[in-house]
């Protein structure tokens, strides 16, 4: 019993004493993931909204494809970006492989379909209710996008948090394009995988506790957002 508990105690000690190496891994993970989600939001929110209000040939096929990409296996994304960014690949000249930038690109690619798909669904529902009114005051579909994005802000924040959750828990893509280099590209998930295989359960458990804490926090934020949305925007 004592033997089972000791890694847990050591893990808690790592957290409590704010171990620099431990904090470095957590910090890098948050930096990479937050940047990836911001990038995905910048691209995905307007694209999702445009897809919601536009009508063109092939739109339904595009929606199906984007929905399918939400379930994209992270290791496949990692492999694709490894091939693109490797020295002999088409983007090899940028020297991004095994850097945090490569991990950001890979994670943004995983989060982007989630942001586009959830934004498209949210904005399409809102547009159905708003369309006639906005048209009656002279706003066409493209002019309405700003209004729709603003009015859906609480729901879209939840969509972004869902993307953040996916990115935080992801291991395959960042492991392949980041290389899990200590102090450079070692993230929480990749460190947990490595430390568990090495038998250093304290560090793995400590990072696991932080990861679970972040997941809980993200879910609490998503719940809070929807409550605030109803209270302040109806």
């Amino acid at each position, binding site marked *: 019993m004592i033997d089972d508990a000791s890694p847990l105690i050591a893990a808690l000690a790592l957290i409590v004493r704010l171990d620099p190496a431990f904090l470095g891994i957590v910090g890098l993970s948050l930096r990479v993931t937050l940047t990836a989600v911001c990038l995905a939001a910048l691209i995905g929110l307007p694209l999702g909204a445009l897809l919601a209000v536009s009508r063109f040939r092939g739109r339904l096929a595009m929606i199906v494809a984007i929905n399918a990409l939400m379930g994209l296996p992270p290791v496949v994304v990692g492999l694709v970006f490894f091939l693109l960014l490797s020295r002999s690949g088409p983007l090899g000249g940028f020297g991004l492989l095994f850097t945090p930038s490569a991990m950001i690109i890979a994670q943004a690619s995983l989060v982007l379909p989630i942001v586009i798909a959830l934004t498209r669904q949210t904005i399409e529902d809102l547009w159905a209710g708003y369309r006639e*009114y906005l048209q009656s005051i002279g706003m066409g579909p493209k002019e309405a996008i700003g209004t729709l994005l603003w009015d859906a802000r609480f729901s879209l924040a939840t969509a972004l948090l869902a993307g953040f959750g996916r990115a935080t828990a992801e291991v395959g893509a960042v492991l392949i394009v980041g290389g899990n280099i200590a102090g450079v590209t070692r993230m929480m998930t990749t460190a947990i995988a490595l430390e568990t295989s090495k038998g250093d359960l304290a560090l793995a458990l400590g990072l696991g506790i932080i990861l679970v804490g972040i997941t809980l926090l993200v879910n609490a934020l998503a719940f809070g957002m929807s409550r605030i949305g109803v209270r302040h925007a109806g």
Partner: protein
Amino acid sequence: MPDNLNPAVALSVSGLSFAISGTELIHPMDFEVKSGRRLVVLGPNGAGKSLLLRLGHGLLQPSSGQVHRNDRHLPGRRAHAMLFQTPVMLRRSVLDNVTHALAAIGVPAAQLRGRAVEALNRFGLMGLAERPARLLSGGEQQRLAIARAWALRPDLLFLDEPTAALDPSATRLIEAMLADLHAEGVTLMMSTHDLGQARRLADDILFLASGSLVEASEAERFFNDPQTAQARAFIAGDLVW
């Protein structure tokens, strides 16, 4: 105002029809809405009243025929506006619902709040200014929709059964607001299937049934001396299809 539209006429419709997938829902019709008048489009459910208003406002394009109206939207003004049976409230405060509409028609940012406050004060809604519009009662939402439309300073206002979902007390308030708008010179084109409301509000009547214009006349004449069997049956409270 378009050259071919007489200033005494707010809306002129000629040979207008509307079809979806080959099914004609509005059969060819001609009529005019005179400036400063209250024209009530009357008829049973499914008569085509809402479609006709949407065609008049330009939300739908006719399959054939023409709709002539003043589409010259001056800066800070909208030549015509529309109210819907279920008011569309944006997910923002009462005040922001009005400022949004004003911004959409090009009112300068510095004037947005002043004009929105003027509209809310005009219709006794200033006390609700910071409340989320979607959390207002149905009657308050429709009053806000009228205030929001009034803020756009339209010459012609289309109203699609604006009191259909309201209780008598809220209906009375809305009708009083519409009377005020009329007194200010706004032309109203409103649909209803409520005969009592048509009697209270209408200067002119368009009576529709099954997508056809059955009768068009001044309200007094329509109610006292209807010219068609369908209109007589509708006024008598019989079922008209």
